[in-house]
């Protein structure tokens, strides 16, 4: 594995499987009386969050603490960033405090990549702008494998605001590495220009795709990133691309419904669907801790010199 986890596209098949297999063993630990391992004792993990986040930050914090690492939480609000400190100066401060790993979320695509050149420790991308969110893709793949038993040949459709979604981009890259067949489905205005270069197929008709899908992943409509009119009204979007009970009925018996959260109930996903037995939304949160433990262990658990793993 690389020293950093910046992009799901950087992961080889072996790396991805190593992370998923490690997460499998760590998930079993969550049922023990003592849910803590001594592995990262004395190591420091900094959560550097420039964007609001609940589940990702808490998930990384829980993962680091279960491995006995010291966790420092840093959010841009109420810090010297509000006084105008640059990312580089913040990075140098963290460096001076001896951070072994920095988990960063930033609204600018590429911020983790820049950070990696300034700090000695490992950098883990927890979502950068519209670029990538690799640990989310890993936990999604982990959830699919646990529910359906395999990833190879799995037909996955990713529906909704693909343009603004770092989750979609990371999932497309990771799932294609793992051998799944991915189709993204969205209104043409919500597809990135370069989607033709992604290792996936593209569709516009959700109803036609549902009967053949093993997994349907709904994306949040990211209104906070929308600076133009991408669709006429929320209701119209919801009618064509929202997953309601009727549409869920088109899915094969075994298919699962995923959502990275937070959900807009009633927009991209109906409440009945989100709370149904097919939905893995709560499971995804629990799996997130195991997957992030695996990532932190594999990045920090060994010697620094041996970061280029055989």
């Amino acid at each position, binding site marked *: 594995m690389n020293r950093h986890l910046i992009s799901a596209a950087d992961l080889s098949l072996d790396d991805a499987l190593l992370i998923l297999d490690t997460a499998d*063993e760590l998930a079993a630990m969550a049922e023990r*009386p*003592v849910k803590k391992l001594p*592995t990262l004792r004395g190591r420091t993990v900094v959560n550097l969050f420039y964007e609001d986040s609940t589940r990702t930050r808490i998930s990384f914090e829980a993962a680091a603490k279960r491995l006995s690492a010291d966790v420092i939480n840093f959010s841009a609000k109420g810090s010297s960033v509000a006084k105008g400190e640059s990312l580089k100066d913040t990075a140098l401060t963290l460096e001076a405090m001896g951070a072994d790993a920095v988990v960063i979320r930033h609204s600018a695509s590429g911020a983790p990549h820049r950070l990696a050149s300034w700090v000695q420790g490992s950098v883990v991308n927890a979502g950068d702008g519209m670029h990538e969110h690799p640990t989310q893709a890993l936990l999604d793949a982990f959830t699919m494998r646990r529910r359906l038993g395999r990833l190879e040949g799995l037909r996955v459709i990713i529906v909704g605001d693909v343009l603004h979604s770092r989750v979609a981009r990371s999932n497309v890259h990771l799932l294609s590495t793992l051998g799944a067949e991915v189709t993204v489905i969205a209104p043409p205005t919500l597809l990135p220009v370069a989607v033709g270069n992604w290792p996936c197929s593209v569709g516009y008709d959700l109803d036609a795709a549902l009967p053949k899908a093993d997994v349907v992943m709904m994306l949040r409509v990211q209104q906070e990133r929308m600076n133009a009119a991408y669709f006429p009204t929320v209701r119209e979007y919801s009618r064509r691309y929202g997953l309601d009970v009727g549409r869920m009925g088109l899915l094969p018996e075994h298919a699962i419904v995923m959502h990275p959260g937070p959900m807009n109930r009633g927009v991209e996903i109906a409440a009945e669907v989100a709370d149904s037995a097919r939905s893995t939304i709560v499971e995804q949160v629990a799996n997130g801790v195991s997957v992030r433990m695996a990532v932190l262990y594999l*990045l920090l*658990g*060994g*010697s620094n010199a041996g970061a*280029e*793993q055989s």
Partner: protein
Amino acid sequence: MHAAHDARDTNAGSPPKVVLEPAEISRALTRIAHEILERTSGARDVVLLGIPTRGVPLARRLAQRLEQVEGRPVPAGSLDVTMYRDDLRLRPARALRHTEIPPTGIEGMIVVLVDDVLYSGRTVRAALDALGDLGRPRAVQLAVLVDRGHRELPIRADYVGKNLPTSQREIVRVLLDEVDGKDAVQLGVRPPAAPSGAAGGEAHS
């Protein structure tokens, strides 16, 4: 048991010497099984936990023998100690192995840890720490197929298949049918280029 083979005769470059044949491994395990029965009054409340990789099939084989004698199943499982090792930072992060605790659990039980080679004792220390996070056994005992000496911690085995005096330059390799396709214990010499501690594969316990 046979007298210990003279390990110092093994020269660098020569093929590894076989110190235990399949029949001898089988006899050693049968003897250990009987010793466990004696010391635990019929293996009541015993859980066998093998340390991956080769401790796991050894634990299974011991469980079979205990069942043959006592006529009731003895639970066997595996305990991965990777996350508890004290040498994690000396090598790249390693893949985890499977931990499988039998449904009886370990609370109040007599846990017999099973490993192939006892060497520095550090693996066993890690296993004791791992057990502590799983529950509180009534007692913990240790069974090994080969004790090669050179302990670095105050740890000893309760059941030993064969005491094998070695020099630290030598490598003890345990091969088991379930993992390697055949049964044998071999004694070889570590290639001079290999860094100490890294060679020997699974036999660094």
